[in-house]
């Protein structure tokens, strides 16, 4: 079946009243769980999995997939409005999105993330359709050494997440790396730093930490400021202006490519491309000083990247039958229950599933855009709620959302502890995004580093003799040097200014 024949075949099966209905249900639920902090697509999909037993496998997958990419649309909402990342994939959106909201520009921020998500989602479906099989094979070329090199490259980008001092950012990176070592040793299985707590055996949970560091600490900061509402200025406009568009189109296109690429790697997903996109935009921007103070590029890029990433993750799943992350693994489980064998032959044996899912993504993304744009007007009204009323509500949502992830009360304690840690760090002028990203990357980096050395019987040459890993490491080295050099120049300039003042 050629591509257009396949797409038409897929559209034919999607454009049925009941399939459209399930697709709509999926994307709506996705948007809702995306908006609610804590409970994310994994929770929603697994709860609804048994509900799909009675419908056809293609329809079941269409609905469940809708929850996944739908959540990427909703995820930005709480990040932008109240500085609480709804999912791990929207942590980076907090940096500039919340600043935009404070300045009365929540509307354009929400608007650009919906439109960016739509463009990123749609472009990746096109890519998925045309090059799924060859790209899936490229993804397979990433083994442990390549992943380690990719993580090095990502690490060298983290310092761009910081607004202020590079030194402080590096300190936070180290703190994040240390926190990332808690839990089971990935190679020997020996429990590390768990202090007898069964919850800590799995490592410190990402969602409680993100919600604590960003959400709870924000509440604590605002108590101190006696803020009356989130807004510091009047709400100016609801939709992005022409200037916003002009500034966002580059980040959206680059975010689509980055997100799609990171999504299709084994172990990939929607989280890592968000901050890579942010760092790239800050690096390319003519006015990097605006980042962290409400630059629309800092919302457009990452929000596009997480959607493109969630679609990219379907590449190995549909082309090879290999789920690259736990969310896609649930889809694989759903196929198994229906007796469908997910593997490289899915496209031939079950074209209705392969093409049905692809066609449904075009339709689903349009539904999501139509669903999300009118909601913006509603969301920004939340900002007008006086803070004394909004704050307890945010706290309640954080507590419920944190508990909802694993029904584990210890995670609530972790969230609150990290809320206070976040408050103290922010008061001392440290930034939290590098910390949390290092916490995500650290364990991946460690496992792949050690596995590479197992593969090479302990020789470090494996990192430079393999072309992909050598290239990535070289790029990481260059970036590291250039940021070191610019930090040196900045310091030199400051010294000269200081000396000049004394004259």
């Amino acid at each position, binding site marked *: 079946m050629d591509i257009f024949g396949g797409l038409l075949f897929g559209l034919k099966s999607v454009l049925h009243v009941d399939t459209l209905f399930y697709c709509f249900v999926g994307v709506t639920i996705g948007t809702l769980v995306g908006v609610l902090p804590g409970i994310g697509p994994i929770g929603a999909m697994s709860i609804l999995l048994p509900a799909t037993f009675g419908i056809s496998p293609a329809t079941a997958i269409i609905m469940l997939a809708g929850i996944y990419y739908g959540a990427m649309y909703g995820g930005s909402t709480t990040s932008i409005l109240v500085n609480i990342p709804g999912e791990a994939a929207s942590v980076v959106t907090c940096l500039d999105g919340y600043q935009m909201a404070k300045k009365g520009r929540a509307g354009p921020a929400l608007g650009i993330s919906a439109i960016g998500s739509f463009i990123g989602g749609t472009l990746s479906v096109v890519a998925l359709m045309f090059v799924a099989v060859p790209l899936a094979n490229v993804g397979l070329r990433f083994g442990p050494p390549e992943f380690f090199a990719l993580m090095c490259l990502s690490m060298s980008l983290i310092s761009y997440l910081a607004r202020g001092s590079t030194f402080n950012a590096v300190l936070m990176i180290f703190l994040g790396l240390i926190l990332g070592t808690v839990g089971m040793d990935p190679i020997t299985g020996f429990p590390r730093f768990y202090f007898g707590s069964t919850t800590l055996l799995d490592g410190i949970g990402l969602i409680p930490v993100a919600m604590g560091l960003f959400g709870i600490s924000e509440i604590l900061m605002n108590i101190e400021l006696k803020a009356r509402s989130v807004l510091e200025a009047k709400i100016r406009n609801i939709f992005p202006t022409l200037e916003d568009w002009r500034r966002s189109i580059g980040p959206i296109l680059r975010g689509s490519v980055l997100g799609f690429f990171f999504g299709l790697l084994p172990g990939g997903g929607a989280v890592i491309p968000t901050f890579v996109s942010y760092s790239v935009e800050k690096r390319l921007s003519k006015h990097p000083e605006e980042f962290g103070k409400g630059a629309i590029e800092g919302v457009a890029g990452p929000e596009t990247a997480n959607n493109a990433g969630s679609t990219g993750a379907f590449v190995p799943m549909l082309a090879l039958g290999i789920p690259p992350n736990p969310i896609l693994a649930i889809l694989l489980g759903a196929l198994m229950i229906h007796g469908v064998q997910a593997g490289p032959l899915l496209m031939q044996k079950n074209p209705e599933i392969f093409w049905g899912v692809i066609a449904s993504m075009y339709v689903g993304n349009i539904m999501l855009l139509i669903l999300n744009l009118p909601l913006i007007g509603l969301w920004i009204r939340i900002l007008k709620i006086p803070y004394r009323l909004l704050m307890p509500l945010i706290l309640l949502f954080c507590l419920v959302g944190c508990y909802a992830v694993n029904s584990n009360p210890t995670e609530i304690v972790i969230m609150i502890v990290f809320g206070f840690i976040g408050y103290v760090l922010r008061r001392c002028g440290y930034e939290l995004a590098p910390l949390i990203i290092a916490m995500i990357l650290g364990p991946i980096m460690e496992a792949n580093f050690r596995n590479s050395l197992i*593969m090479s019987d302990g020789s470090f040459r494996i990192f430079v003799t393999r072309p992909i890993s050598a290239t990535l490491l070289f790029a990481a080295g260059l970036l590291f040097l250039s940021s070191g050099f610019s930090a040196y120049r900045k310091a030199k300039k400051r010294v000269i200014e200081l000396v000049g003042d004394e004259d």
Partner: protein
Amino acid sequence: MDRRKILFFIVLILLPFAFQGFSAEKFPSKPVTIVVPFPPGGVSGITAMTWGKYMEKHLGVPVVVDYKPGGGTVIGTQYVANAAPDGYVLLNAGDIFTSILVGTAPYKLEDLTIVAQVTLNGNVLAVRSDAPWKNFQEFVDYARKNPGVKYAHPGIGTWVFFRTESLNRQAKLGMVNVPMKGDAEAVSALLGGHVPVAAGSTYVYKAQQEAGKVKTLLSFDKAEGYGLDPTIPDIESFFKGSVYDIVCSIYLYAPAKTPKERIEILRNAIEKATKEPGFAEDMKKIGHRVAYMPGEKVMREVLPKKIEIVKGIMKDTGMIK
């Protein structure tokens, strides 16, 4: 109506009361919960749901599934170990002694009792289809002559790891393990050419084999039980008893102090469930095969041997000091 019939009816009417006399109250009289120590959405959850569906008919009460993920099964297992021993809270899990040996589990092996081994999970050893070894014999010869062949597996502490390592040691293959995160990463590492061999769940590799991407060298236990090509050797047939395979059992557990009669009722229900025609088919879909064995037999004949082998592996890999 003759006397015998009347007598029969009287006995029939009195029968339930007789049983009530035995156990004070009828068991089960409220829904039974099966705890799954993993997050929802995975194969374990589906397994428990399927068992529950078939057990309901024989127990006469609903069976619900409750997820208690975390700590690599420790949180869910601890929940059941501490539950009231009334037979209403059960656990669906594989062998739980590994966390106890490592010392991360706050409960003892004696806190839980195995109601029955219900199914086995299939595992295979696979290579890429362009690998130089035509069959398992050639691979064994190669590995023994060239120690240090790397194999990918779904993670340290998973049963696939212990099972492959047990084969590796007993058969003196000299392979070195590369721990990945889950079957998906292990099969990616194999397909991408980063490791020559991978061990993992049968259903994952079966799909790749049908597409001609991998070759299954060995099915740890009987190949045909999982719908694999029956000519693929298994450990028992290949090594003719010189290598002991620690099978990947999936059990139904109950708190240790649960009354014997109740355990018996539960065991009958799951035994009858395994004999229903749809049960085996549903299990096959998720890569399991039915292998019912009463809990006492497991604890007497299989468990000690498994613990001994796994303990040896853990000492060598540094999981326990």
